[in-house]
């Protein structure tokens, strides 16, 4: 009896490990075609043994590997998708320039109807269909489109992997519950792809390679158990594996046209003939080996551009575009649970330098309605030097969204609490200037003019210091003390003043060059206005008005 690498483990460890899915898989070969490659290993150590040995060990070490499920999105039409112009109606084809020979890579439906098929020379295609619109393939734009799609796909799972050039892999085992099961998740992804008019092929399998191969073969498969993998993969033609043509040719020369045929070959001979890497690839596809993938890292900052079809300066149109960009930003932030405090709009002109518009917001948010309100206010004041051709929106530093739970209350006062105060502050600040709106706080300081400071209204209330003894202070303070006229040596303010009570002497601040030496009095004038005046003890007893009690 020959032993598979796994079976060559010490017996004790097998018994110990008998419950693991790995051994289960070995003991339960697929009902259709058993992967004979497992069994027919020659007793002599195979060439690939160094690389195969870890398989057994790892299998023992994996106590309980998390169940994974991969959804593969295969986008065969991506080259066409990336360069197409949604407004154009004519038949269109994408060509590729290979060593000076330009050949059709992809053609749309109408072009195909006219006989334009992939592989045709461009001149021949034009002869067939003179109105054919030709676009050169742009790998850069394909990559961009794929990244955009990956960013979009992040709403379904936290793990999206870009497998260049036209494949996205989503790990969805963790998302099933949230999206209400496999079929509903698959449905929402498919719907989303349709909305973005990406004709994608979806397939689901427990390993990333298996999902990819199934999708490339055009199977809308949905395999959930690793045990079913071998059976499903066996039916796939070898070409979906994406192996080089020479390998495929020699395989078909041996009569190996399907994956199942390859799985029946002896491991040793297969590895010697086609390289250990290919054998490992098969192992990974069947889940016998781990297949780590790199997760797509979307940029932390949002940056998106909108190119207008022609120069425009109508503010309605520009605002509409800005709103579109903001909606995109909101989607970006929503999928990442982020918020931003600052966004930058750039309006590019054809001949003038770009006009920039920065919107800032006290409370980091992601609610675009608020951003749009701010934008409208600022936009009115913005002077565009020339018509705009491109609008770009970039977000500033983003931060994790801090959600606040609102308290449930029975005794609702009825006051509508639709928006936080910060929104009001920003709206007013956007129109009249941020410096013109502020809160206040007190400062522990005896000099009256320094005893307070403007404060940020959105900041959390800090306890105000007011430790002075309760001397009466006026509600109005004059920004600068106003010198009072003297009549017969006594100060007057709209009539003769009567001093009330005893003076309060403030003599302080000598250490910073702005010291005061004043005697403050409360005085009342004939009209009954109570004012706060002082006699400056330094400048020959001049009298000043400093506050009004109001």
């Amino acid at each position: 009896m020959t032993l598979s690498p796994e079976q060559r483990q010490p017996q004790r460890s097998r018994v110990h490990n008998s419950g693991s899915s790995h051994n289960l898989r070995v003991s339960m070969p697929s009902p259709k075609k058993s992967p004979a490659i497992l069994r027919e290993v020659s007793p002599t150590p195979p060439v690939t043994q160094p690389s195969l040995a870890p398989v057994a060990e790892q299998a023992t070490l994996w106590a309980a590997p998390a169940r994974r499920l991969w959804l593969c999105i295969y986008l065969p039409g991506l080259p066409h998708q990336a360069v197409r112009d949604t407004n154009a109606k004519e038949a269109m084809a994408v060509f590729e320039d290979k060593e000076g020979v330009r050949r059709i890579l992809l053609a749309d439906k109408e072009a195909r109807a006219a006989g334009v098929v992939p592989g045709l020379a461009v001149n021949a295609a034009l002869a067939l269909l003179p109105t054919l619109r030709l676009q050169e393939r742009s790998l850069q734009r394909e990559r961009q489109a794929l990244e955009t799609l990956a960013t979009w796909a992040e709403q379904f799972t936290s793990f999206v992997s870009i497998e260049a050039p036209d494949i996205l892999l989503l790990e969805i085992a963790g998302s099933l519950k949230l999206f209400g099961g496999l079929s509903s998740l698959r449905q929402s992804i498919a719907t989303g792809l349709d909305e973005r008019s990406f004709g994608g092929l979806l397939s689901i399998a427990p390993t990333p390679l298996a999902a990819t191969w199934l999708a490339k073969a055009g199977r809308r498969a949905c395999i959930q158990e690793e045990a079913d993998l071998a059976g499903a993969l066996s039916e796939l033609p070898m070409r979906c594996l994406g192996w080089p043509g020479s390998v495929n040719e020699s395989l078909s020369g041996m009569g190996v046209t399907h994956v199942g045929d390859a799985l029946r070959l002896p491991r040793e001979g297969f590895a010697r003939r086609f390289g250990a890497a290919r054998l490992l690839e098969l192992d990974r596809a069947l889940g016998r080996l781990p297949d780590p993938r790199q997760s797509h890292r979307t940029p932390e900052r949002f940056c998106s551009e909108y190119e207008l079809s022609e120069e425009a300066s109508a503010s309605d149109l520009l605002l509409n575009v800005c709103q579109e960009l903001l909606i995109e930003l909101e989607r970006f932030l929503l999928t990442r649970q982020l918020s931003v405090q600052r966004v930058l709009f750039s309006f590019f002109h054809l001949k003038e330098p770009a006009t920039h518009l920065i919107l800032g917001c006290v409370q980091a948010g992601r609610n675009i309605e608020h951003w749009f309100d701010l934008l409208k206010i600022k936009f009115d004041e913005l002077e565009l030097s020339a018509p705009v051709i491109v609008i770009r929106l970039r977000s500033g530093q983003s931060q994790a969204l801090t959600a606040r739970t609102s308290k449930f209350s029975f005794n609702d006062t009825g006051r509508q609490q639709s928006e936080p105060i910060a929104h009001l502050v920003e709206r007013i600040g956007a129109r009249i200037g941020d410096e013109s709106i502020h809160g206040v706080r007190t400062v522990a300081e005896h000099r009256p003019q320094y005893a307070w400071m403007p404060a940020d209204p959105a900041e959390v209330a800090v306890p105000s210091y007011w430790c002075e003894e309760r001397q009466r202070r006026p509600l109005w303070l004059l920004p600068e003390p106003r010198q009072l006229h003297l009549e017969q040596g006594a100060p007057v303010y709209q009539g003769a003043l009567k001093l009330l009570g005893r003076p309060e002497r403030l003599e302080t601040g000598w250490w910073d060059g702005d010291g005061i030496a004043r005697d403050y009095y409360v005085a009342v004038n004939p009209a009954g206005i109570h004012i706060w005046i002082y006699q400056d003890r330094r400048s020959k007893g001049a009298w000043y008005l400093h506050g009004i009690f109001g």
Partner: protein
Amino acid sequence: MADTLEKLLQNPRLWRGRDQAGNSNWQGLPSGYPKLDRHLPGGGWPQRALTEILLEHYGMGELQLLMPALARLSKPEDHEVSDEAGWIAWIAPPFQPYPPALLQWGINLSRILIVRPRQESETLWSAEQALSSGNCAAVLIWLDALDDYSSRRLQLAAEKGQSWAIAFRPLAALSQSSAAALRIQLISGEKGTDLGILKSRGGRPVVLRDYAG
């Protein structure tokens, strides 16, 4: 007979004076001056409406008149519930409102918002924003000119945001009509400041000598 009377009472065009003010849900905000409260319908300042205060000079006691009520508004009884409520906006004040004195009057300083617009039109705009936002319990506005149309807008904004608008205006505005629910004027009297109620929705005009005394 009773039937006819009932019909008549249900006619919204019939002015029913004090009764209507008393029986509606118009609960006034106590002003802190019992003498004044007695003459205000609802027993206090009208909430969710525009109040106009006409004065000859700044400093005639117009702020002291409001302070007890504002202190009450800025300190909601239940802090946890009214997280965002109770802001008091000062729009275009003629001098600097002095925080230590506000503190002495019991105002919660962390609920004060001071706005200094550059133009009169911005004053009205800011006031309307503050009133209708639903954040501000009271909005104090200093204005030289306020036409009928603008006062109506302020009144509507106050209703929308359930806020109390207080406009300070010069005595010259006496002859102009206004949509305010309450108009009062401050005159210096022999003993302290006299307060004249010029117009009061659901109340009667009256002059109070030395309202604080």
